[in-house]
Structure formats: structure tokens, C-alpha cells
């Protein structure tokens, strides 16, 4: 739902009849907007995104992150907000096939992008091998980091297949095929925090799904 659709409501009174607002201040709800320097209304922009295979055309506040666009505007709440600062990885999605923190990505900067969130991993009722492996290995508890772990793992396995070395990749291996050891998985998944402490299950789950 584009935010431009939301009508501006009139000012409300508190139950005891006092005004909501400090003395003498109208809320401007009558429609006329008087602007004070530094107080700027949102700038709107049109974006087009292909999300989990479906085309979306939206008018959005340019400050809207991809994460908030998914969660607040499209009701795709699979991607989670754990920190909104790119520190936890719970919001990880795939942008044009590469994993990224959706909280750090302004939607307007990704016009035309192909987005995959956790809702797009399964093929209908058939779960993605990583989803099956996470259930089998109990690679989550509360489940809040899980969508980010899964999208991150999908992106990570592609990076390995593409021969991207990590900090623990042996020097020689950087030239050829990278062996997906537990140490590689741990290192490459270090941007996805799990406070329930399921790491010891996440690593074998990813290893199994990749095998």
C-alpha cells in the first residue's frame, strides 16, 4: 500500500478533553502545511521491483528500506528486523542473486532489481533443500534469525561455487574449487547472528543441504 493513499486524519482530543498538542499548536490536519526550516515532508518516488517472481510497482517514501518495503508495504514479513543497522543479518535477502542486508538497502536505489526473500525459496509446497535441512537439524529455535540464515546460506553457497575465497580459504584453494568445510561455513555465515545459539546445528544443516 503506497503511503500516499493514507488520508491525513484530523487532530484528536484526549479523553479528558485536553488537546493532544502543546498549547496553541494545530496539527495542520486541515490540509495546509506550513513548513519550518529543517522540517521536510517525505519525497516520494516510483519503484519497480520483481519480488519472488512477482512484479511490483510502488510509490514510496525515498527513505524506505527494502526491508520496510517488504514488511510494511507488501506484507512479506519473512525478512526480519533485528537491528535495522546491518549488524545482525536477520533481514538478509537476495538482491539480483547476491545476499544483502535489506535494512541497509534503500528501495529507491534498487529500482528494477530482482528480489528473493525467504518466501520465495520454496517451490510451491516443496521446500528448498536448505529449509528441509534446517528443520531436520533443528537449526533454529525462536526462528527469528532463520529467514536471514536461509537466504544468506543460499547466497553463500553461490559465492563458494563462484570461487570467492573467504578469510579461512587456504591460499592454494583460492585458485581452484573451494572445499566447503565446517570452518568455511562458519566463517562465511558470521554475518548472521543467532542468539538462541543454534550455530552448532546451522553448520551441519548447510553442509548437508550443499552435499
Amino acid at each position, binding site marked *: 500500500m503506497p503511503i500516499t493513499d493514507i488520508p491525513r486524519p484530523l487532530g484528536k482530543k484526549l479523553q479528558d478533553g485536553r488537546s*493532544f*498538542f502543546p498549547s496553541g499548536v494545530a*496539527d495542520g490536519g486541515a490540509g495546509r502545511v506550513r513548513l519550518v526550516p529543517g522540517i521536510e515532508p517525505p519525497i516520494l518516488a516510483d519503484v519497480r521491483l520483481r519480488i519472488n517472481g512477482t512484479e511490483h510497482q510502488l510509490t514510496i517514501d525515498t527513505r524506505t528500506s527494502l526491508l520496510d518495503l517488504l514488511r510494511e508495504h507488501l506484507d512479506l514479513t519473512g525478512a526480519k528486523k533485528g*537491528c535495522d543497522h546491518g549488524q545482525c543479518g536477520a533481514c538478509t535477502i537476495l538482491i539480483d542473486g547476491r545476499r544483502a542486508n535489506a535494512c541497509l538497502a534503500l528501495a529507491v536505489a534498487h529500482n528494477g532489481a530482482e528480489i528473493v526473500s525467504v518466501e520465495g525459496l520454496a517451490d510451491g509446497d516443496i521446500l528448498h533443500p536448505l529449509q528441509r535441512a*534446517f528443520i531436520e537439524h533443528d537449526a533454529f529455535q525462536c526462528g527469528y534469525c532463520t529467514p536471514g540464515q536461509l537466504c544468506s546460506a543460499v547466497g553463500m553457497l553461490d559465492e563458494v561455487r563462484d570461487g570467492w575465497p573467504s578469510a579461512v580459504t587456504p591460499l592454494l584453494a583460492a585458485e581452484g574449487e573451494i572445499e566447503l568445510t565446517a570452518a568455511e561455513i562458519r566463517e562465511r555465515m558470521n554475518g548472521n547472528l543467532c*542468539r538462541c545459539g543454534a*550455530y552448532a546445528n546451522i553448520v551441519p544443516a548447510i553442509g548437508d543441504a550443499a552435499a
Partner: protein
Amino acid sequence: MSVTVTGAIGAAVDRVEGRAKVTGQAKYAYEYRQDAVAYAAILQSTVAKGAVRTVEAASVLELPGVHAVLWHDNAPRLHEVSDGELEVLQSDRVSYRGQIIGAVIADSYETARQAERLVRIEYAQEPHDVLLRADHPKLYTPEKVNPNYPAVTEDGDFDSAFAAAEVKIDCTYETPAEHNNPMEPHATLAIWEENGVTLFDSNQGVVNVKTTVARAFGLEPDQVRVVSPHVGGGFGSKGTPRPHVILAVMAAQALGRPVKLAVTRQQMFALTGYRTPTIQRMRLGADRDGRLTAIGHEAILQSSTVREFAEQAALPSRMMYEAPHRRTTHRLARLDVPTPSWMRAPGETPGMYALESAMDELAIAGGIDPIELRVRNDPEVDPETGHRFSSRNLVACLREGAERFGWNSRDSRPGVHREGRWLIGTGVAASTYPARRQPSSARASYEPDHGYKIQIAAADIGTGARTALTQIAADALEVPVEEVEVQIGDSSFPEAFLAGGSMGNSSWGSAVVKACRELRARMAEEGSEVPLWVEVDTKAEAAAASAEPLAKHGFGAQFIEARVDVDTGEVHVPRALGVFAVGRIINPKTARSQFIGGMTMGIGMALHEESLIDLEFGDYLNHDLAGYHVPTNPDIEQLEAIWLEEDDPHVNPMGAKGIGEIGIVGTAAAVANAVHHATGIRVRDLPIRPDKLVGAVPRGNR
């Protein structure tokens, strides 16, 4: 009364909501769609002590889409609130930096956050006092410590016995403030309707939230409904309603529109509780054979000026080991800080870090193996009450772990085992956690076309409770798990205790078993052609269980290998093993996750976690996940948890002790003990940061 095992209990059943969680379909509090919802952003105090003079909101209200700025001068008055932290916007007082002093409500999240930055606030600032010290002049002895224990205990003559002890240690251990940091930030969606308010809220107990909100807003309990089927972790921080819940309900009431409010990660460091820092003096005295004669555990903790919260840190020293002369004390300083709250195994976690580090130091002082020292002091009965233990298998855990970990071939000399740049050591510590239960109620129903359904206002914050209760119900009904649906996380279901104190499954499972039994009895009489339902509570059973003259606790042993880089002081934990004796395990798959999750958090406590107080501004400086380090994937290498068969019919009908917290207890001590074994350096203040080791590694080893 015990459960007849037909096979569900003890089976490694996959988490029943697993599919919903891996497909992104499981909805958490902030994710419920609501028409015409408004977004609230919290205004936090930027001073640690004083009063709010003015909130200048005029220009902010010019911003299109901003509807209101709430503050103490225009906020609705609350009715009775039992917790000072929940008296949101009821006065101009500021009691800590980061306290809620207002809210901005707007049409969009972006505008709410923009407006929040634009509100100008003036304070009458007063000097603050935020640092806990062992010589703080305000230290006092509280009347009770949590949940309701005496603050001080004296048995025998501690001073004389300690003075006369042949082997003794006198050491002080410090733990920093630590923040729970569940992955899902606390969030509430509040929707007022004609007859009351509905909350979609992230919490560990819907009943608690319902009761508190009803009281605060002068409503009847049944005018408040709280819905929380999925909760993204809590670790204690969602055990009590936090102030933002009140603020969200207030904002929705004032605006006449549904309001969504999520606490930001940064705000969580002030608003959603944390573990108090502790300063603990341990004095242990023993004879030459390693038999303890004196145990002294004196804990210093903090609370806020808003409310007394007295963490029971010295509690484990009352029941862990035999000693005729014992003293345990707690003293608090009420500082200008946020009120501490529960964090995974409050009391036991910091307390057992101190006690189990001290036991390691005593073992070394007496030239005794640390496992043998614990075995020699394992009590026959609870030293505090004289009651028998319902079951106590600490020694078996230590022995089993020693065997599996290769403890018995260990060279006990510290600082002698080196591989390349790594100094290597191993450490052990004991774990314990009480096995308690509380009354709960539950409804069991049968419909010929829909099968069995259980409803209970329980919570699954990631514990696996929904799955475990399904298994418990299936066995009590003597049907396969597939035929049972368990519904939880809704205050319209029969009242139940919260997910806390490792009492969830014990309390809820007991009610579920009773409900299922009665339903079966009804079906035996009335057949299965008609719909039937029963509702039960376990007040009588829970009271009887509490009155039994038995000491009920789970036990465990933690084994850690630590590697310390001789140049950088960096510590790795390549191997961790936990062995637990906690009654019957309902689901080995989800139980193992609880244990390894606790151990992982314990490794974080040992090596990373520390909330640093900023003396100048008076708040926690490193208030985000970049500054506050929780364990990440590479921090955890080989980590295993196992358990022993243990039959304990006294704890509840399932014979299962709580397992959500024991995994963290003792882990940090085991790491510190292993670091000492690796380096010869005893770090007595957590976390064991590289800077505490880097200059101290002996020259010959660098």
C-alpha cells in the same frame, strides 16, 4: 501419577512450527497486518537524572503525517501500576538515561523516526551516580532476594572455620552488565475496540501482560486480549511487560487508532532489562583432603532508583556443596541506571561463575583434581534445608564428561601445553538449576471430525514448548502426535504460568497431562461420537509438589578446551561438552538445542559480552550489536551436549526438569578455568578479553 510412555515422549520430533518458521509464514508481534495503523517512536531521556522541563513539539507537528507528541504533560493517567518501570509518562522525573519520556506518533515508520529526532526537550539535569563499586556508600542489604529468598544466611561459625582452614582461597570475581538481546526486538501492536484492547505482543507470558495492562488502564482482565503465538527469543527480557507495552496501549488509546511500536535495538539496552553487574567475594576453606569446612559467598549487585531488583547471585552456594560453616550475603546499590531484570538463569549464572571459579582455585591450592574436589564435597542432603534431593547426579555428570572429554589424561600444570602459537588448556565446572513448577490450567477437547486440541496460554519463545506439549499430550491421550494440535500464545486460552525459571514445560505439561486424562475418562464414559472438552487447573498438585520436603534441582558438568594466542591473547574454544542430569528428556532434538544454546550464550558471557557504562552520560555505551558482541558462528566450533538417564517422579508427572537455563550455568567458569590452565593467568573479571591476557602470557611462552 506419571505419564504412561507410548512413545511420543522421548522421540526426536521435528519442531511442529518448523515449516512455518523456515518459510517465513510464522508471524511475530510487529508483523500482524492492521488497517489504518499508526507508528509510534519512543523519545528517550538524554540525561541520567533530573526532570523533563519542556517538550517543544510545535514544529514537529507541522510535519505532514505526524499526529501527536505524547509526554508526561498530555499523557493519559494510568491506574495502579505495581512496577515503577511501567509508570510511563506519569511524572516529569528522569531516573536513568534512555528512560521513556515521550513518543511521536505518525502515519509511517519513516516519518515517526524523522519526527522523533526533531522534538526538542529541555531538562533540569542533576548529577548522576551510575557505577557499581564494592565500597559504594549506598550499599544495603535488601529484605529478600529474588524470587523470595532471605538475603543473608549464616550456618555454623564461618569466620572461625575459615580462619582455621588448612587450605583456603579468598578471591573476588566480577561480572559486567549483560544484555539479553533476543533477535526479535520487543514490539507491540495495540488495537482498541469498543470493549477493550487487543495486543499482538512479543512476550514470555500473555497472562502477565494481560493482567498488567488491565490494571494499568483500569480494565477488567477479560477486556484485554494478548496474542503471541511466535516470539523471537526472550531469555528473560520478555518475562515481564516492559514500559513500551504501556506506551503502545496509551498511544493507541489517545490517538483512537491502532498503533505499532517496536523498541529499536539501541533502545533495548535501556528499556528491556539486563543482567546486573556483580562483584562477588568468595572465601572457601577446606581441610587437607579437600573437604570444605567453610563457604563464604558475598555478592554486591545493582538496582535502579525506580524499583528494587535483587538478583539471587549467592543462592547456588547454599545448596551446591557440603560445608558445616556457611555465609551467603547480598548487598545492593540503587543507582541512576535502568532496572536490571531477568537474564537466562538469573542468580545461578553469575553466582556459579564465581563459585565454580573459586572451586578451581581451591583445587589448585590444595593440589586436588577439580573433579575430585567436587565429588568429595557432593552433599547427601541439601545443606540449606536438610531435605533429601529428589535426584542429584552431579557426580555422574562429572564422571561421564571426564571419560568422554579425555579429562583423565590431563596434565594439571598450567601453561605447559603449547601447539604453535596456541597455549592449550582444559577446564571443568558444575551446573545447576532449580526444578520448580507453578499452577497452570489447560483445556483439552475432542471433536469427531477434527481430533484432539489442547489450548493453554503458554509461550514458545524458541524453547520447543509447543512441540514438547504436543508429545506430552499425545502420550497422555495415548494417540500419535499427528492427532494432537496444541494451541498456545493467546490470553483467551486457559491461564498458564509464563516461560521463565525453566518452569514452562513442568508447569504447562502437568496441566496438559491432567486435562488429557480427564478427557479420556469422559470419552470412556460418553464415547467418541460427540464433541467433548474439559478444562483443569493444577493449583492443588503444584502446591503439593512445592510442599514436599525435597530439594529439586537439575545438575550438569561443563567441559571446555580453550586455546589462547600467545601474541594477541585471543581465546578460542575449539571444544565444549555439557553433560546434564535433568530428569526425563521430552524431545532429544529440541532439548539438545536448549543445552547447546545455553552453552553458546555462556561462551559469549565468558569471552565477549559486556555492557560498558558511560560515566559521563550515564548509559550503556556499546548499545548495539556492533558494540555488544554476542557469539557469532565462527566463535562456536565443536559443541556437544549429552544427558544421563535420570528418573525423578517428584518433579512433575513427566519426570522432566526444566532445561532452558542450566546450559548457560557454569559455562563461563569452565572457560575461565580452561584459560587459566592454558596460560596460568586467572581472569577474575568477565569477559576474558584479549587485553587481559596479552601482556600477561609468560615471556618464555611468547
